[in-house]
């Protein structure tokens, strides 16, 4: 009896040790992962090959190692056709081995990135080829959040065509974003999409009405680059006041500049604008305005800008 107890005790200890080791990440793997966190691609290329070689092709560890090596080849400096070509080949391997995995989805996206960005001197940008990769992600991973990102990227390849004078592709890109948002009301990138669409309406289309409409949607959802939205607030105010003659909308954005982005450099001018439009001025500690200032009832709004 005592012998059996001893065997069980020893076995338990061994199991605990083995279990503990399994629960911990392999130190080599942990070290390799740290190189990604440190953006140290050369070290990634040094540490991941042995991990890949020791893993079974298609296994989670193999996918991670192959994908990380592909990313490292994609971004290691100096880049050339060989480094980028190796990255491309390794992304394809990941897709081939596990076509429905999260690794494959991101590999497809990255193949699009390779086509879209100029990586080395003789590299050519191919926006249509990039879009094909993004579309592949949208089709294969339609219910995954990455589909939204792929849609944004695909729309951007259309906008970046800047196909004057009719801008057919630019318009297609904007329409594609709006259609996606309409059919995906919970899209996490909706605010980014509206802002991008608004920018494209503003430039190159000079479609100020639609630009402001898109920015209003961003404003409802919340600005993603919070704290740096001052220039967009100013643009909205200018479009509303100067181009579209919407003083209430202009006043809303001037007020936001004073309250939300007082360091944008435009808060003082926004106060002047509210006075000009005969609109209330919000409280602002920066300007020693402790309580909101109501407009004068006798003063008519003016669109004339005066010099102080």
């Amino acid at each position, binding site marked *: 009896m005592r012998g059996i107890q001893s065997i069980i005790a020893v076995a338990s200890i061994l199991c605990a040790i083995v279990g503990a080791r399994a629960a911990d990440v392999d130190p080599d793997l942990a070290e390799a*992962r740290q190189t990604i966190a440190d*953006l140290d691609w050369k070290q990634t290329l040094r540490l991941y090959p042995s991990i890949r070689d020791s893993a079974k092709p298609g296994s989670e560890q193999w996918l991670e190692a192959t994908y*990380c090596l592909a*990313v490292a080849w994609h971004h290691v400096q100096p880049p050339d056709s060989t480094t980028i070509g190796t990255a491309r080949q390794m992304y394809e391997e990941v897709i081939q081995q596990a076509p429905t995995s999260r690794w494959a989805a991101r590999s497809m996206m990255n193949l699009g990135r390779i086509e879209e*960005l100029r990586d080395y001197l003789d590299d050519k940008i191919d926006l249509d080829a990039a879009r094909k990769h993004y579309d592949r992600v949208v089709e294969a991973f339609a219910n995954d959040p990455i589909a939204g990102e792929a849609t944004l990227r695909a729309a951007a390849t259309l906008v970046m065509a*800047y196909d*004057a004078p009719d801008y057919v592709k630019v318009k297609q890109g904007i329409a594609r974003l709006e259609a996606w948002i309409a059919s995906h009301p919970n899209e996490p990138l909706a605010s980014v999409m509206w802002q991008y669409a608004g920018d494209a309406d503003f*430039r190159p289309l000079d479609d100020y009405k639609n630009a402001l409409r898109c920015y209003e949607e961003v404003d409802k959802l919340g600005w993603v680059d919070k704290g740096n939205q001052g*220039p967009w607030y100013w643009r909205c105010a200018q479009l509303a006041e100067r181009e579209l003659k919407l003083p209430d909308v202009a006043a809303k954005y001037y007020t936001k500049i004073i309250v939300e982005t007082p360091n944008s450099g435009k808060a003082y001018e926004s106060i002047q604008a509210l006075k000009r439009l005969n609109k209330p001025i919000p409280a602002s500690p*920066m300007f020693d305005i402790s309580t909101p200032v109501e407009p004068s009832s006798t003063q008519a709004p003016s669109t004339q800008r005066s010099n102080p």
Partner: protein
Amino acid sequence: MSDSGEDKKGRFNSNYLGAGILVVAFVVSSIVATINTLRVESPDRNVIRIAHWQLEQGYRSAMQAVIEEYQKLNPGVEIEQMPVTERVYAQWLNTHLISGTAPDICELGFSNLATKDEYTVRYFLPLSNVSSQPNPYNADNEMRDVPWKETLQDGMRGGFREGLQEYFGVPTTFVSMRIFYNKKLLKAATGSDAAPETFGEWMSQCQAIDAYGKKQGKKILPIVSTNTVNGTLSVPYEVAFTANYEEALDLDLDGTILPLEVYIGYRTGKVSLDDPAVQAYFKTVRAVGEQMGRGFSSIDRQTAQFKFVNETAGFLWTGSWDASGTVAMAAEKGFEVGVFELPLPGPGEPYAEFIRGKANEASSSGAGSYGVYKNSKKTEQAIDFLMFLTSRRGNELLNQKAEWPTLTIGAKSSELMKPFQPNPRGYNARVNFNYGSRVGQVFNSRIINYYQGDEPFSAFKAAYEEVIVDPRRGGDWAWWNEQDQRRRDIRNKERVLAQDTTMELINPGSRDQNRYRRALLQQVTRNNALDFYWLFRKHRQMEPSEAWAEFQPVFP
């Protein structure tokens, strides 16, 4: 005759002296290093080290005062400051960062390892998450629930790394430029020691000081500057005289006039060097230059300060960091220093009709930024100290004692620093004709010649008008270069996005979604710099592929 062998034996061999000193020095150094290491590493002690290069008068004692306050609130924690001269700060910090012995908190600057994105991410802790939390040391004021970064007047911009989309530093102060003046000298020259209200008054005072110096048989320069005139001094006038162009030139309606937009305006005839407002601007800065003497650009910072405190200059253009030292040196010399902002032409004075208003300082970024060493064993404590340092109470204490401008909202400045607090009132758009480094080489050298009185404006204008339309050096090259820089920035951001997405794949759910969305937005809205091609076609009526055919893009 004595025995030479015995002689040698009795004589001290000086060769051993050097070796002996070396041995003693080595032993003493080892003991000191060991004691210091044990002191810092001792498990019984909780020591946080903070390194900086601020050796200006008063800063170290100010920092010590904050440390003592903090230690009272946190018994058991010891903060040690390590002031290092800026001449060796970079090498010193590099050595410690690489060897893993860097202080827990380091002032960020000088060293590439503390300033370049690819190294910062390796050696310093990202602070975005913690900067979004309230600062507990503001619990006693109305900012108790406000995110830490929003409690600083610059929104912590001084610690933000655009390329990494992260806060890596916590700024602690502001810097601003002002005119200092010798009240005694001004009173002797004009009968009053009041600061001028207008540009015209200032120039009259300068002339009076010049005349007073001649009467006294002394060479007194009315104005000296520790900083380049074509920059910190000219920009406020550039804004004042040219902000009105914003409506015509700001094509993207972002509220500023980019140098590219100025170039487009120049090429399309919307702005020129002959415009009366532009002429007024250059002539105003030239008027300042006239009061600084011929060859003023050769006067360096030390010389300018020396002339001012030795009463051979009436006005000194310099920054808040020099205030405390300058005032103290002036007091030793027996005069009081006054401070004012650059004045603008007042009603009835020449060029007043072109003035839109003052340049504002609302978008100034904080300075004196500190980061937390990634390999520190006490990162939480280090962040806690930085929170105290930038709480209303801590920041007021630091900057009041150091005589620097405060950064935290509601923190009161010392009397001396009140005129240095950034002024949010005024404008920010300006017409800067200096577009691109190649144009800049011509612009900067020739405009200084004009400001110094070495060349007429026509010489500067001819040189500028030649270079700006030069296909290889001018605005078209600068346009190409800007798009190439933008393309590179976008490509570099791709690396940060790749890191983010890879870490998310390795450890699903670990990604900071907001950070990723922000980086994605910033990248995608820049359209791979292809909008530069579209703009070029639209405004230059030429194919960029022809105009830019000879330029080689840069790849890292």
